[in-house]
């Protein structure tokens, strides 16, 4: 079936909200902070945030460094102080051993050397309150401290050598007194050096901590200033943005309306004064329905209800008329977004645009279209009557065949003209008072198609169609059959069949063409379900628009589907309200046997039997789009209906 231009579709009625746009300028350099939300950052604000972040990071870093330094310094002081006690212990051990008592000066000598080595070269020491855990100490970096510790180490070495001499010589050594004095002097010097080192380390630690504290105070002050500046700038940016938004809303020609969950107007932009002559404050708390034209209220309610039930962020478009304070009606179009999940809105946001002038222009164009089409229609009708007379008087089969061709072309011209009338929005087709056999309607539609010989009608039940819908249904089917024959190979057939359903009767028009893609099919179905107003796009894809409009008039549903063997099937669901008939229920009526070829000629020339339409030897073209109410056959009811009505 169709790959025609009609397969193009217009805007979707419900779409997801687009993603928020990015920011430009300096704002792009600034990390997007969630706390700022949609607040746009100015140039100055853009620099304050990185500065604040750097300051805070510096404070945290200095704090960590100060804590680490304090802990390390405490350990160093502890280690240095412990070293002094170890010197005293070594001296005592040496004297105890010299006096003949047991002790282990060697071990205490090693223990005495260890703290100095750790302080100088770095290493691990046992934490004073760590339950046996050890803590790493970095090597001393300050040159003063290092000089003192190196001196400490030299004195320890000399102390151990002196101690060894005492241990080796004992009290009997002639140098015992000198060595003993030397031991005491060295011990005192070591204590002095150790004290000195501890004092130096402590002073440096104090100075370093003091420096850190000063830096932290300075950073803290800077941070406070930056935070204050940031706060002020944020406040100013927020105020500027709010003012900008207010200005945009107040000066916009569109209306911004927020509908609360209960349907009342929660916010109304002041521009309503210009559009509807009403004060925004007067509308808040009222319902939108108070302004909507009574004829449009059902559509508006349906659109809004559908949107409320849709996913958050979904949008919908609808048009309606709103009443001006002076009583006149303004045509508007609204884009409505569901922001019920946004706590700042908590409702539906309607962007309403005044399209009264456009509506007037559209009406004017439709009138123009209709008038031109009516004139053409009159001429074509006269042409058809003339051809009809010629056909009736012609006996030469060749001339008659040529007349039939002219007849068919004129019939197609008339259908095109009728398409224009349909698109103009005016319903002026002929209508029948009484019901018309459905089979006649189908045959009439097929007769309007140039390649009618490729169309096989089968399985249409013995039903009647309401007279007021007969012409439109025939027209609708003709468009679909025409599309099917146009977009399938000339060597293939197009099959038209029917079958009852629970809520009506379905006509199927099935072709054997190359089919349509899923996207094309979806778009075509959307176009069929929601025909747009006449515009340039519609003129390029007239078929589906006409079908959609005709279907909408009578509550008929038309849908395209893929065929399992290729091609497309058009399903036309005729509602039960339009059907009547031969049987009480469509399902009860006997269908025409499948596979029986029914010619369009039968509609005009053939005699019908109760078993169905009979094929003829040759297939002359039929001129009329709708079944003729005064023809013979089993269309007695239609014949009784008399003249068509406008």
């Amino acid at each position, binding site marked *: 079936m169709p790959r025609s231009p009609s397969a193009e579709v217009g805007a979707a009625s419900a779409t997801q909200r687009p993603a928020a746009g990015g920011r430009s300028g300096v704002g792009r350099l600034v990390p997007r902070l969630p706390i700022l939300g949609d607040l746009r950052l100015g140039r100055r604000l853009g620099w304050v945030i990185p500065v604040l972040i750097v300051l805070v990071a510096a404070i945290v870093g200095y704090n960590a460094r100060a804590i680490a330094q304090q802990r390390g310094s405490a350990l160093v002081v502890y280690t240095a102080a412990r070293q002094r006690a170890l010197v005293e212990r070594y001296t005592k051990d040496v004297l105890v051993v010299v006096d003949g008592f047991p002790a282990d000066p060697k071990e205490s000598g090693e223990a005495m050397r260890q703290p100095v080595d750790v302080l100088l070269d770095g290493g691990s020491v046992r934490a004073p309150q760590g339950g046996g855990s050890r803590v790493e100490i970095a090597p001393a970096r300050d040159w003063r401290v290092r000089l*003192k510790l190196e*001196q400490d180490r030299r004195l320890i070495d000399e102390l151990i050598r002196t101690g060894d001499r005492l241990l080796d010589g004992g009290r009997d050594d002639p140098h015992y007194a000198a060595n003993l*004095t030397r031991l005491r*002097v060295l011990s005192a*010097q070591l204590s002095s050096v150790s004290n*000195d080192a501890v004092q130096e380390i402590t002073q440096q630690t104090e100075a370093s901590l003091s420096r850190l504290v000063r830096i932290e105070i300075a950073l803290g002050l800077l941070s406070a200033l930056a935070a204050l500046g940031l706060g002020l700038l944020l406040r100013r940016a927020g105020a500027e943005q709010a003012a900008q938004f207010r200005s945009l809303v107040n000066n916009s020609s569109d209306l911004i309306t927020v509908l609360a969950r209960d349907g009342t107007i929660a916010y109304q932009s002041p521009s309503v004064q210009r559009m509807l002559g009403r004060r925004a404050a007067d509308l808040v708390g009222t319902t939108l329905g108070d302004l909507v034209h009574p004829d449009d209220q059902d559509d508006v309610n349906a659109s809004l209800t559908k949107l409320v039930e849709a996913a958050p962020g979904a949008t919908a478009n609808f048009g309606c008329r709103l009443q001006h304070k002076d009583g006149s009606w303004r045509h508007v179009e609204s884009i409505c977004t569901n922001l019920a999940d946004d706590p700042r809105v908590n409702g539906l946001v309607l962007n309403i645009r005044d399209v009264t002038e456009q509506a007037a222009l559209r009406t004017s164009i439709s009138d123009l279209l209709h008038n031109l089409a009516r004139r053409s229609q009159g001429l074509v009708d006269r042409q058809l009557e003339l051809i009809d007379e010629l056909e009736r008087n012609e006996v030469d089969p060749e001339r008659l065949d040529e007349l039939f061709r002219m007849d068919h072309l004129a019939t197609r011209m008339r259908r095109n003209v009728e398409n224009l009338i349909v698109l103009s929005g005016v319903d002026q087709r002929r209508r029948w008072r009484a019901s018309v056999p459905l089979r006649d309607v189908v045959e009439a539609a097929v007769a309007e198609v140039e390649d009618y010989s490729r169309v096989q009608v089968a399985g249409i039940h013995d039903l009647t169609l309401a007279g007021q819908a007969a012409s439109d249904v025939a027209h609708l089917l003709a468009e679909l059959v025409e599309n099917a024959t146009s977009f399938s190979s000339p060597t293939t057939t197009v099959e038209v069949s029917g079958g009852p359903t629970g809520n009506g009767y379905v006509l199927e028009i099935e072709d054997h063409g190359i089919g349509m893609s899923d996207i094309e099919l979806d778009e075509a179905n959307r176009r069929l379900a929601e025909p747009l107003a006449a515009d340039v796009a519609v003129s390029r894809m007239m078929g589906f628009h006409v079908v959609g409009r005709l279907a909408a008039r009578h509550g008929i549903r038309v849908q395209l589907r893929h065929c399992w063997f290729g091609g497309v099937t058009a399903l036309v669901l005729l509602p039960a309200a339009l059907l009547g008939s031969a049987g009480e229920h469509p399902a009860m009526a006997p269908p025409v046997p499948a596979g029986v070829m029914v010619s369009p000629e039968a509609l005009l020339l053939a005699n019908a039997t109760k078993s169905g339409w009979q094929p003829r030897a040759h297939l002359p073209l039929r001129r009329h789009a709708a079944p003729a109410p005064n023809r013979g056959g089993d269309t007695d009811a239609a014949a009784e209906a008399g003249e068509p009505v406008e």
Partner: protein
Amino acid sequence: MAWTRARRRWAWALALVLAALALAVPLTVARRQEPTPRGTPVNVVLEDFKVGLDAAVVPAGTVRFQIRGQGPTRHELLVVRTDHAPDKLPLQRDGLTVNEDAPGIDLLDEVDGLDIDDRQTLVLRLAPGHYVLYCNLEGHYLGGMHASLAVR
């Protein structure tokens, strides 16, 4: 050209900075021009564990000791007038430090807390006699930190 508020603010800030500079520069220059104390200069070097003098004899009168600590340990310097030999000063009961209150010891003045690279000047009016300069921290004197100075 009309001055905006922001420009006025910047002008005030600039004026304050200039005023601070104008005050700071003379103060810095004045501090550098302190008068040099007079007297006979004697350079004293303190290091582990000795006292070095560049003069053994100086004339009586004002003597300016220019002391420099070379460490690595922190030291102090005491100047006493005594007839004792430099290494024979009376000790306290701990046997490690000089008894400054002992008879024959006249403590004139002292300088303490001299760390590595610290410099200090001690000005004394010395009468003719024998003087000993020493460090009295524990073990330092006995380690050899003393020197003799004759004033004539």
